């Protein structure tokens, strides 16, 4: 399991999942469409993952596969994985997918995530160490949180190396810079 204090892990669990209630629940106001504080069996509610997970453990509700892993996304990722804007679908696409894969009973989800990551990894690798820093912002808007950390790690280490190679204080001072300027008269 991920670190308890990991902020990314906490935010990833905020993603919304739709839950179908199997049992009747009294005294909770989590279904905004119902008039009483009571959730009927079979009603469908959008809940954050951390709550849906607890309900799932108690067999109160079942989760549905969230929209960001639907067939359309899978087809797009299959066609050209590097161009798909995964960040707008879910910034925590992989983490969320890993969490939800064992719970929704979708056996393809795990391998789908792996293949998506594999295909997009090459793009991150190619851009990360070589891209000009001005072009960086354009492609990094498509990346998920996990890919962005990888990308930034590559960029910062390459930048640090280039800075070292240029070497700040070791530059030779041009002889002309040392001379005093003649007073203009």
């Amino acid at each position, binding site marked *: 399991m991920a670190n308890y204090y990991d902020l990314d892990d906490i935010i990833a669990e905020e993603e919304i999942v739709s839950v179908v209630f199997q049992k009747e629940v009294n005294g909770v106001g989590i279904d905004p469409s119902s008039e009483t504080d009571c959730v009927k069996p079979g009603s469908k509610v959008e809940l954050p993952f951390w709550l849906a997970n607890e309900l799932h*453990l108690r067999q109160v509700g079942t989760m549905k596969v969230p929209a960001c892993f639907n067939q359309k996304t899978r087809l797009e990722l299959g066609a050209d994985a590097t161009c798909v804007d995964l960040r707008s679908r879910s910034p925590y696409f992989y983490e969320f997918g890993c969490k939800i894969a*064992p719970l929704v*009973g979708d056996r393809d989800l795990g391998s789908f995530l*792996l293949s998506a*990551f594999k295909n997009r990894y*090459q793009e991150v*690798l190619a851009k990360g160490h070589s891209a000009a820093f001005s072009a960086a912002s354009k492609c990094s808007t498509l990346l998920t949180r996990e890919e962005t950390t*990888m990308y930034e790690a590559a960029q910062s280490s390459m930048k*640090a190396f280039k800075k070292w190679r240029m070497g700040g204080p070791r530059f030779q001072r041009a002889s002309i810079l040392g001379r005093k300027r003649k007073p203009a008269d």
Partner: protein
Amino acid sequence: MAGQSDPHLSLFSAEEVEFMAEDEMVEIVPNMRMDPLNLLCGDYGPFFPQMVTQVPVWLAIALKKRGKCTIRPPEWMSVESLTRILESERESQDSFQVLPFHYVEISRLLIDHARDDIPDIYMVRSLVEDIRDVRFHKIETSLESFEDARSSAVRIKNLSAMEVNIVRPFVGRALQAFYKHGSPDLVPNPDKVPNRWQPAADPVQKRPLRKR
């Protein structure tokens, strides 16, 4: 051992790698007479004028700055040797040529501090740059292929300290991600209907370690 510049990551900065490279030995020709230096890291000298002796790079640079010696650039830093290495780097797409582990740092240190001791210094500098570029491109292509294998592994020989240091943060994160997504827990067993959360996957499902 981890770098000191960033307490959160176990990474080295380029300056720290350079610091480690300064322990490599290099030949100098002193122009003064001096008793041997008995230091914790070893004994160097005695120094006699025109007698070649071996000292670490940091000592050579310190003496050079005071005008007490000339540095003899190592064998591999000659134009012929570098040209040969560059050609064979370009010819073989898969393998890396054998170079000193700290060749990037040592060549930079010597070029910065002992420019009058290196013949054809501009040629040497651009050859080292070319070699580094060719090698780094090869590293990128070989890293691309490491997700093809089922084991998420790649074998790259003869990398130098600086090259490893550049790709280390990226490769570390990428390997972690591949490990996470490739774990067999993510593909549940079809026989069991996953109605309940299963605390641990079947040990049989786990990928067996490769035998050595």
